[in-house]
Structure formats: structure tokens, C-alpha cells
């Protein structure tokens, strides 16, 4: 088995190596990838969407549909993990001996304190990352992940129960769904306003004092919030289920 694996791996590697021979040189400004689509994004982004961070404008608008679906992927993963692992309390009769407990220094004061101190800052920073995604690196994903990570950090530092007190199971689920709904809902609003799906320029009809360009910019912000919510909630959902084996009782 290992030998077959090795042969397959080497064959694939050689195939890829052969493919590389015709690649344009690394970081070549004249490569097709740099000359075909990207100039358009770079030059038109400001004019068409009023977003200086081109990654954000491409992510949120030009290829907004990809992003929406990718949010859906996270949602699907969250639901999948939840479906697989979550156990209803009634059925949970046969307990496994908890073998991890003594290994983990749950009561470490320093860890606790630092986590408690850091978490609010992380959350604040995450909000900044989401909101400032138009102008600097960052956006819905990064912000969402950091938000989620802050909760996970709390769960590691303290206890799962503490996190669950702040973010109940239902809240997590609803937030996760809400996030994707915000994104696709904005898309559907555009359809209802008789433009194409995710064509944020349609939003200028309902947002006060916005022209088509600014409508796009606002639309991107809206979907970023959706992305952040969905990513945050679903990562927390996955973590909680993974770490507690779906019992929601005790984390790591």
C-alpha cells in the first residue's frame, strides 16, 4: 500500500513538474494571469464600486457569488458537524470515562486572566477588521474567524459552559443561518428590484442618498457582515461539537 502510494505520488509529482516547465516565470508581470483579468479589477474597482481594497471588491462584488457559496460551505460544514455529533440529552446514557480532565490545567490563573483580558480586544479588533475591509486587508472572513476564535479562546481558557452561557446553542445556530441569509437575502432583494442577482446597484433604489456606485460599496459591506456572522457562528458550532463530542458539557 505504501509502495503503491509512493509510486502514485511520484508519478503525480513528475506530471506536475512537467506542467511547470511551460509556466511563465514566477512573479513575471507579463504572465497571462497578470495581464488578462486583473488589470480590469485594479483599474475599475474604485470607479465601479468605490472600494480601494481590490480584494474586497472582487470578493464581495465581482465574484460575490463565489463568496456567498463559500459562506454556504461553512454553513454546510456547521450543519454537517452538528448533525453528526450533536446528541440529544435523552439518548445520552452511556458515558465515557473522561480521561482528559487531569491532563489539562483548567484552573491556571494566568491563562484565565489573559484570556479574559484578550477576548474583548479580539472581538473589538474583529469588528474593526470587518468594517474596515474596504480600505485595508481584512473583511468578513477574517473578522468572522477572529470573532469565532475569541469565543474558542474563551472556551479553551475557561470552560465550554461559560461560552455556552454567552452564546447558547440556539443563538449560534440562528446566527449562522442569519449570516448566510443576510448575504443571499441582499442578492434576492436585488432580484426583487428587477436587477440581476447580487447586483448591488439595485440597492440605490431603497437606500437613501446613494448612487449606484455607493450602493455597491454598501452592498459589499452588508454581505461582509453576513459573511462574518456566518463564519463566526459556524466555526464556534463546529468547535463546540468537536470538543465536547456533541454533548455540550465539557470542553477540552
Amino acid at each position: 500500500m505504501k509502495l503503491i502510494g509512493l509510486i502514485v505520488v511520484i508519478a503525480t509529482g513528475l506530471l506536475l513538474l512537467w506542467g511547470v516547465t511551460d509556466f511563465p516565470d514566477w512573479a513575471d508581470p507579463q504572465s497571462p494571469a497578470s495581464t488578462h483579468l486583473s488589470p480590469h479589477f485594479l483599474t475599475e474597482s474604485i470607479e465601479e464600486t468605490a472600494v480601494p481594497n481590490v480584494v474586497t471588491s472582487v470578493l464581495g462584488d465581482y465574484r460575490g457569488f463565489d463568496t456567498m457559496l463559500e459562506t454556504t460551505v461553512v454553513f454546510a460544514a456547521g450543519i454537517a458537524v452538528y448533525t453528526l455529533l450533536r446528541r440529544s440529552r435523552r439518548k445520552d446514557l452511556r458515558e465515557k470515562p473522561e480521561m482528559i480532565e487531569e491532563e489539562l490545567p483548567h484552573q491556571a490563573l494566568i491563562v484565565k486572566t489573559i484570556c479574559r483580558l484578550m477576548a474583548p480586544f479580539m472581538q473589538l479588533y474583529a469588528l474593526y477588521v470587518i468594517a474596515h475591509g474596504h480600505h485595508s486587508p481584512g473583511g468578513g472572513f477574517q473578522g468572522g474567524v477572529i470573532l469565532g476564535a475569541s469565543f474558542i479562546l474563551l472556551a479553551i481558557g475557561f470552560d465550554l459552559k461559560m461560552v455556552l452561557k454567552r452564546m447558547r446553542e440556539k443563538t449560534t445556530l440562528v446566527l449562522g443561518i442569519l449570516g448566510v441569509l443576510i448575504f443571499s437575502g441582499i442578492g434576492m432583494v436585488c432580484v426583487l428590484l428587477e436587477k440581476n442577482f447580487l447586483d448591488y446597484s439595485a440597492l440605490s433604489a431603497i437606500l437613501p442618498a446613494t448612487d449606484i456606485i455607493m450602493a455597491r460599496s454598501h452592498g459589499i459591506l452588508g454581505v461582509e457582515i453576513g459573511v462574518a456572522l456566518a463564519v463566526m457562528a459556524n466555526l464556534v458550532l463546529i468547535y463546540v461539537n468537536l470538543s465536547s463530542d456533541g454533548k455540550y458539557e465539557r470542553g477540552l
Partner: protein
Amino acid sequence: MIWQFDLIILILVAITAIASINAKDLMSAAIIFGTFSFLMCLLWAEMGAVDVGFTEAAVGAGVSTIFFIAAVFRTTRRTKD
């Protein structure tokens, strides 16, 4: 973009990748994988993909590693290979 720097990180990335799949303890494999992700994100940031690097720092080095650790805790650290 300094290619020497680039190369060093690349070599480190490769080493951590190999180390991670060869670790005899799943927990250390997970931690080494975290290092691998972190180096990766450094590499990408250095290549100008700041957004990707940013995300990888949060997702790859952070959340993925924690997922691994959570799973290893819930199952076993033992591995035969």
C-alpha cells in the same frame, strides 16, 4: 520580496510538513501543523497576499490547529505512523 528570505521560509515549510506527517504523537503533529500553517501565512503575506495571509493566520494556524487538537483530545494521541 526578497528571494533568499522566501527560500528559507519555503524550506522551513517543507521541513515542517514532513515533520508533521512523521510525528509519532498526534498532538505534536497537530502543533507542528500549526507551525506549518503559520509559516505558510508568513510566506503569503510576504508574497503580497496580505488578505490570504491574514485569513490563514486566523484559520490555518488558529482554528484548524485547534480543531485538530480538539479532535485528538476527544480521540487518542496514539499513532502508529
